[in-house]
């Protein structure tokens, strides 16, 4: 690992001041991704600003019924929080299907949003990867791309966003609060991650000197009937091939409210707007679920090894909605 200077920030103002004067600096949270990438030489900050002592560890109910989650809340603590388990069960489930218990005890909410892809070629410094080294090409296209994206990809990059938690959050219309020396801004999570286009190295709209301080969930009664379903190569401790975060509200046999987001298939946490549009007002039947799933996956592009994900994603959407309809949510 390249040597670096280490600073520990005691509060948010000193953290954002420190990064504003250190262009080669990075914030370090739980370290589950950044430390690994530093060891692999993919990340090489000159200065590491440890933010784990910042007082951003609360999960608070807001006056409007929403919930404010501090950026340094550990993934395991968020998943076990009773407010989240009862009101947003898809979020608890998504977190619990991610990584291992040890990693969830380390990983933070803010860090989870900023984790990098696990595309094999991004980690392999001998391979071409536009995300790691802009302009070098993409060895995943035509290479081992079984885990790569079928939605939102470009000819520059087909890397999948690896988070489970962010998939649930994007279904919930979460808002990310960020702070810098210029002040505070709030970014809807659906706009937070960028599609790769020709600049896959730029993954979010976050500026280099901005710190994520919180994630807010709006009040969303239909989220009480929600689930997260993850399809993967082994039953636990594996990244998603396909995952579905969904909430469903049905009255008189008609869909009156629906949220769907997909993981494992796209270059960013993928809100399934098209499937939601098809379903809203439609009869709550397998036929509607299938039509919605087909509409969402219509623009999907399969590569040499991941074409199967197109059908798998459609079936996972149908199965998740059917379970919500017949068995209710996970809470």
């Amino acid at each position, binding site marked *: *690992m*390249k*040597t*670096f*200077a*280490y600073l*520990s920030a005691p509060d948010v103002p000193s953290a954002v001041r420190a990064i504003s004067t250190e262009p080669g600096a990075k914030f*370090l949270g739980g*370290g*589950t991704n950044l*430390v*690994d990438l*530093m*060891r692999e030489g993919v990340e090489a900050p000159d200065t*590491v600003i*440890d933010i*784990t002592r910042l007082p951003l560890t609360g999960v608070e109910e807001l006056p409007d019924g929403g919930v404010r989650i501090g950026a340094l809340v550990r993934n*395991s603590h968020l*998943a*076990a929080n*009773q407010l989240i*388990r*009862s009101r947003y*069960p898809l979020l*608890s*489930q998504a977190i*619990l*299907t991610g*990584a*291992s*218990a*040890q*990693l969830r*005890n*380390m990983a933070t909410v803010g860090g989870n949003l900023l984790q990098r892809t696990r595309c094999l070629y991004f980690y392999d410094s001998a391979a071409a990867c536009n995300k790691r080294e802009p302009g070098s090409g993409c060895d995943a296209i035509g290479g081992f791309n079984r885990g790569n994206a079928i939605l939102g990809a470009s000819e520059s990059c087909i890397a999948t966003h690896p988070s489970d938690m962010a998939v649930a959050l994007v279904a919930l219309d979460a808002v990310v609060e960020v702070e810098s020396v210029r002040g505070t801004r709030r970014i809807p999570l659906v706009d937070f991650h960028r599609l790769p286009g020709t600049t896959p190295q730029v993954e979010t709209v976050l500026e280099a000197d901005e710190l994520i301080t919180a994630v807010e969930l709006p009040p969303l009664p239909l989220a009480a009937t929600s689930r997260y379903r993850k399809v993967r190569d082994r*039953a*636990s*401790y594996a990244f998603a091939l396909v995952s579905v975060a969904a909430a469903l509200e049905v009255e008189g046999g008609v869909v009156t409210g629906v949220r769907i987001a997909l993981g494992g298939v796209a270059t960013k946490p993928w809100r399934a707007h098209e499937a939601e549009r098809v379903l809203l007002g439609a009869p709550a039947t397998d036929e509607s679920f299938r039509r919605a799933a087909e509409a969402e996956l219509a623009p999907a592009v399969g590569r040499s090894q991941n074409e199967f994900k197109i059908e798998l994603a459609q079936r996972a959407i149908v199965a998740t909605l059917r379970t919500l309809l017949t068995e209710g949510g*996970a*809470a």
Partner: protein
Amino acid sequence: MVDIRMRVNGVEEKVDLSPQVSLLDALRGELGLTGTKKGCDQGACGACTVLVDGERINSCLALAVQYDDRDITTVEGLAGEGEAHPLQKAFIRNDGLQCGYCTSGQLCSAVGMLAEHEAGAPSAVTEHLCATDVELSEDEIRERMSGNLCRCGAYNGIVASIKEVAAS
């Protein structure tokens, strides 16, 4: 170099470390506590699991400087005065190991897992997420311990050991 206070198994030591040293390397190299093992060194195998303030983490992905002044427990700190920890005894009774390389991580992980379960935390296989008195079935144990790999495949003995201790 950074001066940090490491409190490991109840003993406080001052260590002067380069900030890129992992907690795992600090425990093994600086303090000579070689019970904690380095398997993959990338957070994939769980052999390096230790407890920080009672919670299990992968010490390979932890920079030691981040754990200044925290309470760390390694496998060397599990046993009482002259007596093995109940999980250690159960692992011996149930053949919860073959080569033993993953065992210290399995033990620390199981201690952390039992505390999480006791506190009412759910897992990915918990049927009703809001329930706080989930029965620690074999499925629950396997899911909650999935961050610890055993290349010898001693899983049946490991699960049996944990089940036995959880029930006692």
